């Protein structure tokens, strides 16, 4: 035997038999984190996403708590203080009717954000129900729902919203309903896809072969499986709805006075753009900052949920 060893002088006890090392061979590389702790750890690393989260919380807090600090009413007109630039008393200035813009932006923001959240909730409820029905029932029910979803998905969105708000009256309710009725398709496809995937899993097939009620098993696994995608979809769709409402109100088809929203405020400010640009500036900057914050959070979240996407 040709052993090309450099040192033959290894202590004998080094050759004691130790055998399989149970601990080392079944090693766990990292401290085991739960899925969500891991997601949060990755999310925190993303400075931009964290910034987005802080910004989002700050905006929501301002919008809901701001009027308490400004101590003004959003409808109160004071003709002695028309079109004031921002100052110590009127933080964002006043509008052409002498109303405090800061307070109005807060009130408008509540409506805009509320619409964003409501639309998202309605969208998810309709989408999940349709998707679950299609996925669980299969067959002609699935076919019918998916054809219908394809039809709705192919509708020209803004035009349908215009028609619906026109025929239902221009209330918040009508706007929310119109926007969510045209946008549930994505959620429906997602939920259906997840259910079909779950159905394929071995233990579910086994359970159904044994005659168990698989619907319950599937539904129990559905939420944990889809939580991640749902959270990304939520953060991405809220700014979409805020945008949609802003456009509608901007062209005068959305929220009507005395109610207001960021879009309606911007629309009113448009007329005064040349000489009092601040009236337009503040609602606009709020829309931009809010959508920006939601986008950053959504991007960060989808990266954190799927680390493969990073590189």
């Amino acid at each position, binding site marked *: 035997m040709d052993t090309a060893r450099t040192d033959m002088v290894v202590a004998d006890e080094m050759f004691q038999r130790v055998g399989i090392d149970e601990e080392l061979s079944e090693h766990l590389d990292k401290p085991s984190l739960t899925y969500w702790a891991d997601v949060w750890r990755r999310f925190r690393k993303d400075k931009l996403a964290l910034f987005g989260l802080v910004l989002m919380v700050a905006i929501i807090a301002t919008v809901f708590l701001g009027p308490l600090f400004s101590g003004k009413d959003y409808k109160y007109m004071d003709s002695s203080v028309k079109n004031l630039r921002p100052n110590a008393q009127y933080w964002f200035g006043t509008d052409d009717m002498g109303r405090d813009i800061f307070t109005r932006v807060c009130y408008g923001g509540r409506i805009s954000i509320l619409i964003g959240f409501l639309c998202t909730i309605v969208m998810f409820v309709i989408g999940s129900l349709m998707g679950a029905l299609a996925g669980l029932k299969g067959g002609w029910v699935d076919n019918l729902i998916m054809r219908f979803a394809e*039809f709705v998905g*192919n*509708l*020209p969105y*803004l*035009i349908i919203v*215009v*028609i*619906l708000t*026109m*025929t239902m*009256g221009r209330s918040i309710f009508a706007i929310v309903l119109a926007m969510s009725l045209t946008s549930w398709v994505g959620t429906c496809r997602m939920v259906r896809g997840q259910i079909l995937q779950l159905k394929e899993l071995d233990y579910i097939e086994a359970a159904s072969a044994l005659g168990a009620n698989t619907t319950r098993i599937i539904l129990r696994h559905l939420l944990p499986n889809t939580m991640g995608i749902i959270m990304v979809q939520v953060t991405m769709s809220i*700014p979409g709805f805020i*945008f949609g409402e*802003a*456009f509608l109100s*901007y*062209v*005068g*088809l959305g929220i009507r006075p005395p109610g207001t929203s960021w879009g309606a405020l*911007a629309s009113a400010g*448009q007329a005064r*753009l*040349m000489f009092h*640009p601040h009236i*337009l500036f503040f609602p*606009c900057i709020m*829309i*931009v900052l809010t*959508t*920006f914050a939601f*986008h*950053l959070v959504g*991007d960060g979240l989808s990266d954190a949920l799927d680390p493969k996407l990073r590189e």
Partner: protein
Amino acid sequence: MAKFIVKRVFYGLLTLFLIITATFFLIAGAPGDPIAAKVEQMPDRAQEVIRKKYGLDKPVVERYFIYMKNLITTGDFGESIIYTGKSANDVIKANAPISAKIGIIVLVLQVGIGIPLGLGTALGRGKMYDHMIRVGNVLCICTPSFVFAALLQYFLAFKLKLAPVFGWGQPKHYILPVLAYTIGGIAVYNKYMRGSTLSVINEDYIVTAKAKGCKKGRIVRKHILRNSMIPIVTMIGPAVAGIFGSSFVIERIFAIPGLGSYYVKAVSDNDYTMVLGITIFYAMLYVASLIIVDILYGIVDPRIKVAGTEK
């Protein structure tokens, strides 16, 4: 392929039929009598005449069949109830070309700039310019076009006097609306193209191409480009339909007499027949663009092209 197109056209016509029907009954069932405001002051006999003229004395279903018959046989979109004698056809003929001119310029710019930009940032992923463009991109996506419009009006037109603030008729009137409308779209195309290209870059067949000895330029031209364009094609379709007037907001801000601004006006005027007519016109464009997209898709993606001929 031919069979595939026939199938898509059939689905398109079905969608169109459903949209027209739904819109007709929605508007017919809208709260309030559309004609009431107009005829309030008239004696009963005169009211009767007007109702008869618009066919409002007949039941809804019969009106629907009459409307469909006129639409199909003579292409008649209906007549305004507010402005006697003005038909939806006239309005479309007069206003749609204006919207189309802006729309085409905007679309060409958006696609022409957004797609190369997305490809470039994806290929230079992680580089300085990629980060910079991405941040700028998120900001542009988060900014509604009416904010861009306001910024441009205020700075370029009002402060620097480089272009007219609003108006229509001369080439210089194109500058601001086109700019305001284009920026957001570039960002959207850029974002999707970047994402699509990144996912193609990670495909196994790109490694195959590299293993074959293709250089980077050839890999991009022959292997990446076509595959990453496939999902983008779906976006271009609705955008083509948008050429004729999804730019309500821009048209309104810049006082452009396009179809979009007329549509919004008809909605605010509660001019039901006009809204119905223009909606149907939009729906037709929309459906036509979906068919075009499907055909384009077939050209770009051989799985559809060939499967279409074989079956």
